[in-house]
């Protein structure tokens, strides 16, 4: 995610699930590995490498696969989603990626009216915050009901990051609650995110 001075060492070794990789006293467990009885074992088939993030700490063993990473949204994780539909009480969206890992299949999410912003919650209107098609940065509030994840945008850094106007051009934010179309100069209301560079984690 962030630009750490990661020190990655590739061991020239292919490992398979259940293979013994090392001792817990020598390494941390990274993705694709697990701990049992003080030892570290592989849980995926792939290439072994060890990564040192901080010099003083133990290196983390990871098993790298050629295929894409698999994740699911968790509580408090930052997600990127696309608004699908809005009602007066909530807005439904499809979760496209978790942190910086894109999902192969979308998960359903829901932003309730009271979770759109932190202050003056009673004055929020859903249609003044989101429109279908907007790309929204949100945080997973809870795992919600059986249907969908509950998301929140009640932080300055969260909200709409990309919205297209009726003319089909991406709009430019003018304030925290307004966006302007550069072509038609049409003003539209949105819950705009104050975009933080370390939140936008895609490859440069």
């Amino acid at each position: 995610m962030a630009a750490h001075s990661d020190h990655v060492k590739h061991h020239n070794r292919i490992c398979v699930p259940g293979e013994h990789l090392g001792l817990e006293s020598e390494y941390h467990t990274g993705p694709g590995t697990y701990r049992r009885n003080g030892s570290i074992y592989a849980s995926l088939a792939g290439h072994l490498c060890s990564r040192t993030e901080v010099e003083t700490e133990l290196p983390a063993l990871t098993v790298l696969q050629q295929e894409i990473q698999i994740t699911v949204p968790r509580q408090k994780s930052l997600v990127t989603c696309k608004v699908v539909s809005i009602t007066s009480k909530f807005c439904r969206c499809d979760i496209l990626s978790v942190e910086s890992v894109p999902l192969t299949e979308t998960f359903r999410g829901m932003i309730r009216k009271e979770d759109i912003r932190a202050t003056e919650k009673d004055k929020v209107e859903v249609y003044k915050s989101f429109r279908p098609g907007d790309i929204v940065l949100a945080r997973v509030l809870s795992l919600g009901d059986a249907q969908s994840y509950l998301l929140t945008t009640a932080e300055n850094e969260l909200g709409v990051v990309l919205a297209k106007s009726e003319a089909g051009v991406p709009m430019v934010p003018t304030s925290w609650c307004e966006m302007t179309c550069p072509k038609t100069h049409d003003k539209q209301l949105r819950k705009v995110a104050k975009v933080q560079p370390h939140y936008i984690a895609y490859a440069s």
Partner: protein
Amino acid sequence: MAGLELLSDEGFRLDGRRPSELRKIRLRLGVFDQADGSAYIEQGNTKALATVYGPHEVLGGKGKPLHDKVIINCQYSMATFSTNERKNRPQGDRKSTEMSLHLQRTFEATIQTHLYPRSQIDIFVQILQADGGNYCACVNAATLAIINAGIPMKDYVCACSSGYVNNTPLTDVSYLEESQGGPVVTVAMLPKSEQIALFKMDNRLHVDHLEQVLEVASKGCKDMYAVMNAAVKEHVSRMAKSMECS
């Protein structure tokens, strides 16, 4: 025993194998592009195809998502042309439902289910040709498909069956040997940690022989593991090479 001698005086079985010999194994990983993971296995004349989808959102009214782990949904089916007499329906009968449940239990024991809460993994296995050891072929194929899909597992699961004829345990019994009515023990094992994920016995076997038969079955699982391991390693290194080239 109806005239058939399962073990000849020279110590050979009907298909010419020795008692502790597995049937010829051929396998392939990644046979389909559409599925997240897939594998094909042939153990003698038993042929099985496994596909894995997920982890994805829990769909339909089938099951409720679990808040702390992933749902593993297994479906076992036999192609209508897989047996001597054409089957009327490939799945949904009592035998297939039981088999699906066994597969589900087996893989719940080895997939790291806590990593993907509130989602679902689908494992579909189909027997294309049935010649004994269907469960074993399914487990082995599904293990390879899960590895191909990149779903974290504690260990491989390898399955092997064994029978008992004339005071001799037989490994990897074929349909002919199964259908004679002798005891058949099926074991699904995590070969590295030597834990047993599933243990099943058909017909009666004297308890004095159990240990011996179990020993042979677990040896069969480990032999199976060696073959699967070689195939997986080869697959991973080939994938790595093709990545470097492109």
